[in-house]
């Protein structure tokens, strides 16, 4: 008997999307901070940390017993991907938050370049670990669709895409330019995410029954999400990108940013909701 999973829902999708997007934005912002533009990139990093924090808050509301969450740190099971994720999130929030807070309030260390670089580096390392652990978390389950090295890879790619998206949104809001190389980079991640996602469909025939069931779900019950992902998440960004090459405008970049964020949300939505379990009875 094969059953779609019901334990994880939209809250998990939102947590994964907001978290992945937030940490990717933080890393991008820190890299550009190192390149020279300080003030804006601290604000962009702050947006990333806020996104991560929002994701974690959504996650906590999903927990059946949120008040017991401290046990993840009190009696951690170090063999669990989730435990590592908790630590990565906490450290990303801690170091990333300390790096980004000067974008909101005046702090004594804000002008100390050395401290800021240390905080940013540590924040980026833990942000990268957050970005990689989410897909691994899903891959370490009994759900055949998720249980593949493609899942962490896809999640990493869409996190980077959406990270560029949020960075571009902050740039648009603060009337700053988005570096062209970053937009090019988001096209590479989009292309790779497209290939990775398509492989799920391409390999379904030679996969397990539960995997095929999940792919069938994507092509029936969740066909709308699959279509939206391909149209808005993959084709859309390319269309806007090439259009922007011909007629550059800030509005194009705004649309591109939104589409990149949608790409991450829809890919994660599809994977989470199409997850199915093969039971022996």
């Amino acid at each position: 008997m094969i059953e779609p999973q019901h334990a994880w829902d939209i809250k998990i999708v939102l947590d994964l999307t907001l978290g992945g997007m937030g940490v990717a934005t933080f890393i991008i912002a820190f890299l550009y901070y190192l390149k020279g533009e300080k003030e804006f990139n601290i604000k962009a990093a702050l947006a990333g940390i806020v996104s991560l924090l929002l994701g974690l808050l959504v996650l906590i509301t999903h927990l059946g017993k949120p008040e017991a969450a401290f046990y993840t740190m009190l009696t951690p099971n170090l063999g669990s991907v989730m435990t590592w994720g908790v630590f990565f999130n906490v450290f990303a929030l801690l170091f990333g938050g300390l790096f980004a807070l000067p974008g909101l309030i005046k702090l004594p260390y804000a002008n100390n370049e050395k401290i800021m670089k240390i905080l940013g580096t540590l924040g980026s390392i833990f942000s990268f670990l957050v970005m990689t652990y989410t897909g691994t978390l899903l891959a370490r389950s009994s759900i055949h669709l998720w249980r593949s090295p493609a899942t962490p890879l896809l999640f990493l790619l869409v996190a980077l895409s959406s990270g560029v998206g949020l960075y571009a949104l902050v740039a648009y809001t603060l009337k700053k330019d988005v570096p062209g190389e970053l937009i090019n980079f988001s096209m590479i991640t989009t292309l790779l995410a497209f290939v990775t996602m398509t492989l799920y469909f391409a390999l379904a025939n030679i996969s397990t029954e539960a995997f095929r069931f999940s792919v069938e779900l994507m092509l029936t019950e969740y066909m709308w999400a699959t279509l939206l992902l391909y149209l808005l998440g993959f084709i859309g960004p390319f269309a806007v990108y090439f259009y922007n090459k011909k007629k550059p405008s800030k509005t194009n970049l705004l649309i591109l940013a939104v589409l990149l964020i949608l790409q991450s949300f829809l890919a994660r939505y599809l994977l989470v909701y199409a997850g199915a379990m093969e039971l022996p009875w």
Partner: protein
Amino acid sequence: MVIDLNKCVGCGACVMACIAENRREQAFKAIAEGLPALENFKKRTYVNTYIVGTYPNVAVYYTHMICQHCENPPCVSVCPTGASFKTKDGIVLVDKTKCIGCEYCVQACPYGARFWDPYLRSIDKCTFCEHRLEKGMDPACVTTCPTGARLFGDLDDPNSAISKLVNSGATTVFKKEEGTKPKVFYILPMRKR
């Protein structure tokens, strides 16, 4: 535990015994809440009925869902707080205080044996009636089964009836490929009713 599916008549006494023994309070609450709560009421063990074939060659058989108390339980390895654990006797249990309700174990269990209990506010599952075992009794489902379809015993004791049965080669486990090494063995239905 060995479950002989040939002996099962699908009466569901094991399911009711389990509820009465382990989930009585939750059942009363669900009854008080009405039909939707009853429809969503989760059981630690349940029996599925399968009808196969077409008239006049129709057959029916039953399968039993229960926690497999795996030797390599994936639910234990994924639990972030250590709430899911294995006792020295090999029984997989949940520490309800430590359970945060992330339901990662639900996703990790290849047998779908775990569920979130909104009344307990914890993950719940079969415990092999650990409290009864401590008193030298068998699990409630084993005691109740009118046909003796469920057999319980010590697999570490080579002279126990269950060890002899398992070692005879008559039993099998589900999802061997997962590498979980389940400790619930099945005798598959040979004769269809």
